[in-house]
């Protein structure tokens, strides 16, 4: 093969990932839904409903699930970009759930976000040097010559040509704009980065460049990622562990290869079987999910997946399964797990 670069990344053994960086306990985020004029009864979209989750230092944890399942809300709630309705969040062992604004600000530089739309999230009237330098200026960390030096370093780190620093974002390609977003996110040496659909809008070849960069930075800077995406192949490539969401619940969590090869939840199984494969001969058996994702303000009783589940029984209609470990590496919320 021609130029497949030979850098093989060290896979951390699960047992070495002992330090929990971020943890959610019984986290909830409900959004009120406006009822009709005379409808005094308040109803809620339970976007994140009682989720507990640990993310270990140095790992990439990914969230997958249908549109509207609550992935972004969970990510944003973990960073307290959205105030949780209930539950608690720990960052490096510290309870940050009710930290005041000022205290939160001190922690915030350790938690950064890369957004989906590299254009929409960059101010079009700012030059690249201003955009990348902004975190330093806002936090009064560097100015003048020192700031300039930092910006140049960052641009080199993410593979942008520093001589183009006085250009505006629209003069860069999609992948390059995404790199500007990444440079901003890593400017203050964060420990944790939420990448919410950060590569979804990019076409395959550009996507590959950005993902390689994210992996390099993780290795060099020891970053921990929460990665949200709907491209299942990308998730498989970048993740150590994956969480599968359905209607505000985490229905399965596990090591990525295990979970892809032997999904335990019927929803995970359906999700993975529908993933398009780049092989025209592989007409795989697809589990086609009937119907749409139900309304999140009026979710089904019992197991929320029962209305679309090929294995559902009467028990599933009434009794909600809890997320429980089925092996050292895997938890699943289903009365009849597949493994």
């Amino acid at each position: 093969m021609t130029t497949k670069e030979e850098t093989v990344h060290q896979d951390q053994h699960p047992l070495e990932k002992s330090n929990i960086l971020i943890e959610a306990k019984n986290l909830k985020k409900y959004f009120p839904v406006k009822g009709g004029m005379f409808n005094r009864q308040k109803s809620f979209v339970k976007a994140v409903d009682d989720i507990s989750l640990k993310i270990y230092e140095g790992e990439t944890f990914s969230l997958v699930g249908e549109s509207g399942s609550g992935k972004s809300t969970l990510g944003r709630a973990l960073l307290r970009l959205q105030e949780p309705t209930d539950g608690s969040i720990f960052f490096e062992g510290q309870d940050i759930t009710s930290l005041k604004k000022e205290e939160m600000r001190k922690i915030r530089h350790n938690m950064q976000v890369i957004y989906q739309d590299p254009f929409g999230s960059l101010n079009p009237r700012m030059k690249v040097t201003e955009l990348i330098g902004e975190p330093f200026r806002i936090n009064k960390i560097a100015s003048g010559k020192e700031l300039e030096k930092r910006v140049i370093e960052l641009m080199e780190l993410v593979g942008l040509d520093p001589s183009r620093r006085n250009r505006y974002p629209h003069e860069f390609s999609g992948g390059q704009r995404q790199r500007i977003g990444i440079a901003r996110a890593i400017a203050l040496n964060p420990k944790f980065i939420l990448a919410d659909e950060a590569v979804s809008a990019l076409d395959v070849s550009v996507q590959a460049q950005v993902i390689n960069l994210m992996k390099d930075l993780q290795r060099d800077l020891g970053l921990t990622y929460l990665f949200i995406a709907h491209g299942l192949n990308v998730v498989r490539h970048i993740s150590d562990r994956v969480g599968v969401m359905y209607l505000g619940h985490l229905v399965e969590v596990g090591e990525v290869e295990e979970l892809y090869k032997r999904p335990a939840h019927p929803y995970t199984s359906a999700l993975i079987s529908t993933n398009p494969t780049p092989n025209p001969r592989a007409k795989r058996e697809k589990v086609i999910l009937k119907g749409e994702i139900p309304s999140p303000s009026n979710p089904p009783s019992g197991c929320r997946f029962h209305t679309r589940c090929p294995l559902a029984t009467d028990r599933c209609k009434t009794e909600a399964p809890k997320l429980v470990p089925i092996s050292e590496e895997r938890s699943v919320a289903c009365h009849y797990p597949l493994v």
Partner: protein
Amino acid sequence: MKELLQVKNLSVEFQSDAGKIRAIDDVSFNVKPGETVCIVGESGSGKSVTSLSVMRLLEYENGSIAGGEVLFENEDLVTKSQEEMRKIRGNDISIIFQEPMTALNPVFTIGRQLIEGIQQHQDVSKKEAWDRACELLRLVGLNDVPVRMKQYPHELSGGMRQRVMIAIALAGNPKLLIADEPTTALDVTIETQILNLLNELKEKINMSIILITHDMGVAAEVADKIVVMYAGKIVEQGTVYQIFDEPTHPYTKGLLQSIPSDTDKKDRLYSIKGTIPSLNDLPQGCRFHPRCEFATDKCLQSEPPLLQENDREVACWNFKEVLKEKVKL
């Protein structure tokens, strides 16, 4: 089999501040009845411009056809008036745009928009149109159809909206459906539903489909034939098996290699180095040469012609070298 659509040497230009730019250059491909042709390529390669020019919708975006023919059932659409085109659009050829939310009118119900679509093309009563609308919604796999008819776009999920768009596109019983990235914004479960639906419809009503995508996985699932575009030109075309088994253009090969695969997970992802050139600053010679691993001196000097070889086409001076190296998927 006879061809339904023949695009011959089509070129399209846009008037810009920097003068004229040629967005697609000398593009030729055919579509048979009941066939699905996928157009693939990176962002900016000219996929949408190609489809819009088949529909003659470019004139509305200050673009113009600079040369070539678009033969639909042997009639040249390029020489038709917009008046005549209006009769063809929606009847013989329909298009689904990428973003269903912007393509549906938010202030009218689904039913009203469907019925209008039907009555535009067929001389039927309101009652007949209503029945036909319901039938179309069922065809695209919606349930609770009478309820859906009275709902507004924002009350439907993304996947449902996309299916409504397909229903509207099917209202005139088109022979050719053009779908521009119909699933890019959707998650995989809904994407699968839509792709299955397209496959089903193709069989049920023998419709031809031009599907535009930058996802090679999607192309693998639905395409009979694949057209690969780069910077406004077709660089390779062939059957889905030819393209996936034996890519002969370095760009096609690069696209296939960039797909994150199941196996060598801990390796770096392959990526084609560099970026697609801007149209007003195209490289000399082969427009892919600055990014090409196979480039030789000849590639820097002159542009490779699109050569035909047993029912497939490739534009590369060194395709024999490319063929020697197998792609592992």
